């Protein structure tokens, strides 16, 4: 029995270990490559360390390959704004849909589902016109709003599911204790919904952080106002053979996303499943 259990445990670790290796390896390999000179990066007998230095990083960060730091700043600003706004919008909407019965609620939720079915990037032209009419074309706020429309529907579903798991008794206790409906939302429900909010924030952040098509259409073409994703895209097209530099730039782009991921990962399981279980 003990022997069998031991065997099962070894099997379990082997399976999880292999899967983890596959999950991590592509990124790990980019990391390895990012330290190699371009010529070594395309060697036919790859090694972990091959004249590895931090030169690639130095050259990318120094702006030699484009105004990397400016792109980085833009991306952080846009992603942060998208995150905050998406969380705010989907939290208020998710709460209303979770707690109140009001005419139009069903069609609102259905339209959120339908919105995800249309490839909105083919509507860049009408979107462009609207942003222009609103005076938001070329501004980061315009881009942020567009990102919100892609992130909010799913986030609302997610948060609605999470709010549904918080007993309504708490809302009522809060109202009896003297809170307004908004006070209940702000002081009781939001603090309790942290896991759900964390997932929402993560999702919204990723939506904005890696996106290329909208960013290249709606930001001004000046090099200094590009986001990382756009800048790197250009970089890829111009430097097809500089794998080492590309790898270093990619790692620099991936790091903030991974940091955000690490901050919220504890909450992901609880936050995501509440939304998915309840639908």
């Amino acid at each position, binding site marked *: 029995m003990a022997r069998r259990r031991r065997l099962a445990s070894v099997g379990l670790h082997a399976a999880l270990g292999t899967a983890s290796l596959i999950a991590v390896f592509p990124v790990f390999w980019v990391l390895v490559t990012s330290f190699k000179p371009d010529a070594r990066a395309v060697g036919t007998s790859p090694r972990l360390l091959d004249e590895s230095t931090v030169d690639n990083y130095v050259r990318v960060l120094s702006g030699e390959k484009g105004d990397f730091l400016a792109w980085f700043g833009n991306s952080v600003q846009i992603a942060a704004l998208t995150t905050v706004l998406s969380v705010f919008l989907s939290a208020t909407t998710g709460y209303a849909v979770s707690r109140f019965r009001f005419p139009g609620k069903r069609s609102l939720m259905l339209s959120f589902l339908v919105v995800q079915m249309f490839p909105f990037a083919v509507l860049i032209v009408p979107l462009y016109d609207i942003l222009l009419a609103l005076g938001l074309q070329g501004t980061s706020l315009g881009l942020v709003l567009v990102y919100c429309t892609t992130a909010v529907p799913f986030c609302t579903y997610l948060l609605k599911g999470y709010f549904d798991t918080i007993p309504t008794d708490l809302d009522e*206790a809060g109202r*009896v*204790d003297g809170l307004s409906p908004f006070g209940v939302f702000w002081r009781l429900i939001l603090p309790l919904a942290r896991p759900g909010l964390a997932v929402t924030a993560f999702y919204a952040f990723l939506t904005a952080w890696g996106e290329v098509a909208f960013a290249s259409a709606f930001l001004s073409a000046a090099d200094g106002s590009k986001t990382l994703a756009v800048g790197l895209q250009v970089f890829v097209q111009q430097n097809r053979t500089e794998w080492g530099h590309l790898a270093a730039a990619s790692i620099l782009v991936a790091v903030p996303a991974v940091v955000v991921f690490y901050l919220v990962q504890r909450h992901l399981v609880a936050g995501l499943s509440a939304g998915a279980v309840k639908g």
Partner: protein
Amino acid sequence: MAEVSYVKASRVYSGNPPVRAVDELSLDVPDGEFLVLVGPSGSGKSTALRMLAGLEDVDEGAIHIGGKDVTNVPPKGRDIAMVFQSYALYPHMTVAENMGFALKLRGVNKAEVRKKVEEAAGMLDLNKYLDRKPKALSGGQRQRVAMGRAIVREPSVFLMDEPLSNLDAKLRVETRANIAALQQRLGTTMIYVTHDQIEAMTMGHRVAVLKDGLLQQCDTPRALYDRPANAFVAGFMGSPAMNLKTVPLTSEGVKLDGLVVPLDRRALDRAAREGLREVTFGVRPESLALVPAHEYGMDMTVELVEELGADALVHGAVRIGNASERFVVRVDGRTPPALGNRVKVAVRGAGEIHLFHPESGLRLTD
């Protein structure tokens, strides 16, 4: 402190047909009274309470607290405190924060809040737990925190929605007494919802019985028990339940298994005026007694004996007409009959018989 009144208050859920969860409830609760709302599930008792709290709309009629019409006032403007069945403690706040939250919202200064919280905690024996989160407390402690949260407010009315139903039996009995004593001490009007008729009987100054959204009767526990206004109240209050049987009526009284139980004249007259040939006859288990075989009584075959210690409950079958009806008799616990015995059962006194209209269920006896 304040009196509470429901003035033909209704809660109607839209639907087809609309559901009248609470139907034209009229009820006056004087200042300082402990009123219990009791009824089976779906009777509208919780809805009625929540209407008073402002958590449920009042679709028709009005509700007054302390003489003021609060029908359209949000909960926070009603000066009430409520204890929920689930306690609804805020999980992210400590016990002290939970209890002081309402005061904090009203802008009471911190020292004052702390003082009041400590006072209430002292009353409920919670001082040791003030810095814990609700998660780290036992069920009974959580219940006390919920009570404390209500007390700290010093509201004009306490509302309690089945606050004991998540406690184990022993703790429930203990807490029952504590709540009653607390209410006595504070002298604050209390509206208490429960489905448990023992709680209702033991705690309330008056008890209001609801069924299907309609108020059946509101009176003191004693009056409710002795003179139930209809067959429903008769059957609902008291444990074990009153024996309620529809039996043929004669000019003398009711016929049970060849035995005619004589009835009060006025009740008979009333039945005759209505042209009734049958009535619903009710007698409580303790109003029946086993009598020696040669005496006048109904024959009963013992089918089950529940020994409670002091008493025993004897369940048995009695023939009424062609049907076999079950009766429960409360007997002395030391000498219960054995299973399968045939015993004679008689009503202790004519005054202990309740008669109800067989269709409307309304009381016929005085």
